[in-house]
């Protein structure tokens, strides 16, 4: 940050930058680096001792840890897949419908569909827990209306359904974000492109698939990476709906809840900051990997379509 030659040092630049850079570095970057570093240490006799990759070896190899770790990672991948195949297509569909010209009430639809996104996980998790509860009977009653009552089971309480159900609840909450971003992208497509397509006789569905979809691919790429980062960092919804143990029988455990238990301990197990740091490091590497794939692969290939 040296001053340009033959000019007095521009202190105001430093003054403008300092608060943001200091807070950001002290609270975000240094702790992040500190966490990565902690994952290489162990607490032996009240002292932090450097142990290399020992914590990671335990995480991957020691059955006490590895069973839970691989389970959480697998669940997290499934959580992400559900988001990708349900949330994003619904978001694109809603945005495509909303962006059709002269659609009435579009402001109302937009506002209403975005409502779940602004609610906290605590509200969302609990509200759905109540609705799906067999005690209350909202869900069975509703299914009875369409004659499907026999299909009802307590989805959140069954190992085979709980994770998928929670993923769908999360989809329900966040579908507003892809919808809005795609909607913005669709609105920014130049009028001339659409007119040219119409001159060539491309309208309706084929116009969407052949003209609009390729043009909004960069936005879909951004949504995918946002979803990826959000999913591999998720914690609140599972914690609210199923507790720190991510029941039933760890079937909804994802990396966030696993990190929480490792770090703070639960029931009889004592919290272990070093193992917590090791898990956080793995999450960091996964997210970093995802971001790199996005930046180097998707972004460079998609940029061709941008104006």
């Amino acid at each position, binding site marked *: *940050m040296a*001053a*340009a030659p033959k000019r007095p040092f521009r202190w*105001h*630049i430093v*003054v*403008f*930058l300092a608060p*943001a*850079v200091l*807070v*950001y570095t002290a*609270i*975000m970057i*240094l*702790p*992040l680096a*500190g966490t990565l570093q*902690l994952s290489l240490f162990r607490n032996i006799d009240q002292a932090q001792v450097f142990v290399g990759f020992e914590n990671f070896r335990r995480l991957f190899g020691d059955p006490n840890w590895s069973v839970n770790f691989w389970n959480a990672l697998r669940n997290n991948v499934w959580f992400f897949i559900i988001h990708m195949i349900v949330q994003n297509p619904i978001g694109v569909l809603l945005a495509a*419908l909303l962006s*059709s010209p002269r659609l*009435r*009430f579009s402001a109302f639809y*937009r*506002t*209403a569909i*975005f*409502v*779940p996104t*602004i*609610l*906290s*996980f*605590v*509200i*969302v998790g609990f*509200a759905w827990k*109540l609705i799906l509860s067999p005690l*209350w*009977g*909202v869900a069975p*009653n*509703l299914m009875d209306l369409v004659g499907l009552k026999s299909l009802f089971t307590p989805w959140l309480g069954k190992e085979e359904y709980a994770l998928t159900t929670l993923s769908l609840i999360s989809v*329900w909450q966040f579908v507003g974000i892809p919808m*809005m*971003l795609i*909607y*913005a992208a669709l609105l*920014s497509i130049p009028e001339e492109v659409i007119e040219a397509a119409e001159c060539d006789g491309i309208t*309706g569905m084929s116009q969407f698939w052949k003209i609009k979809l390729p043009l909004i691919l960069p936005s879909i790429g*951004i949504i995918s990476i946002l979803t990826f*980062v959000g999913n591999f*960092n998720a914690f*609140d919804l599972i914690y609210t709906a199923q507790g720190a143990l991510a029941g039933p029988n760890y079937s909804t455990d994802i990396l966030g809840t696993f990190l929480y238990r490792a770090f703070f301990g639960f029931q009889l197990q004592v919290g272990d*900051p070093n193992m917590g740091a090791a898990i*956080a*490091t793995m999450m*960091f590497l996964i*997210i970093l990997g995802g*971001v790199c794939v996005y930046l180097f692969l998707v972004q460079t290939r998609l940029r061709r379509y941008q104006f």
Partner: protein
Amino acid sequence: MSTATRSLPRTIGAHAVLLTYTVIALFPVIIVIMNSFKSRAGIFGAPLTPPTPKTFDLIGYTTVIGQGDFIHYFQNSLVVTVASLFFVLLFGAMAAFALSEYRFRGNSLMGLYLALGIMIPIRLGTVAILQLMVASGLVNTLTALILVYTAQGLPLAVFILSEFMKQVSDDLKNAGRIDGLSEYTIFFRLVLPLVRPSMATVAVFTMIPIWNDLWFPLILAPSEETKTVTLGAQLFLGQFVTNWNAILAALSLAIMPVLILYVIFSRQLIRGITSGAVK
């Protein structure tokens, strides 16, 4: 698009799909609020009907207000959110101004450094953040939360605001310089008022995750004194699992302030998203 290409069935189809999804989006919220005004018998007897004079009951609300210390939690959330928002906007705007206005060595590197935090969640540093807060005696204070949320909000704020500040006319700023205004006056008097709309967008984006966060209040400030409304609601809901009136009332109380704020600011928020601020 010409009217010829829009057919009536297609319009009806679009409305049908959008309306269906609107119902799906609003249904859980409505059912929770509706049932919070009912007696226990009404909640279980007819969960899908609105409260009638026979089933109307405020027992849930009286329990919540009598039992929980919600007003206090609410104040904590308000203090944390407003203070973090203030620092994010002030520091973020200052840094964005420095990055977009001046050319200096390391400018783009600094921009990249600050943008790192958009993709890497601050949560991953929790282990060390807790150690830092323990070492500095800030555990169970609202200051800890404010610091964390300020750091969390800054990257996106700097990124969005510097995009907008690049659009502020150079002539205006140079006119100010010729009139002898200092760089600080130019920033506070000329540039800040001009980017106010984008500040509002950043404010909304920053505010929602802070207000709704459960992770950091749970870890950094779980004491009775410093509980935020999200954490308070979480613990309250856990305690009253069997008191459905109280749970539904607590959920409704937690939903309503956010919902009212959203209805007021939704235009701002949606304009912010669709103006391409978030690319």
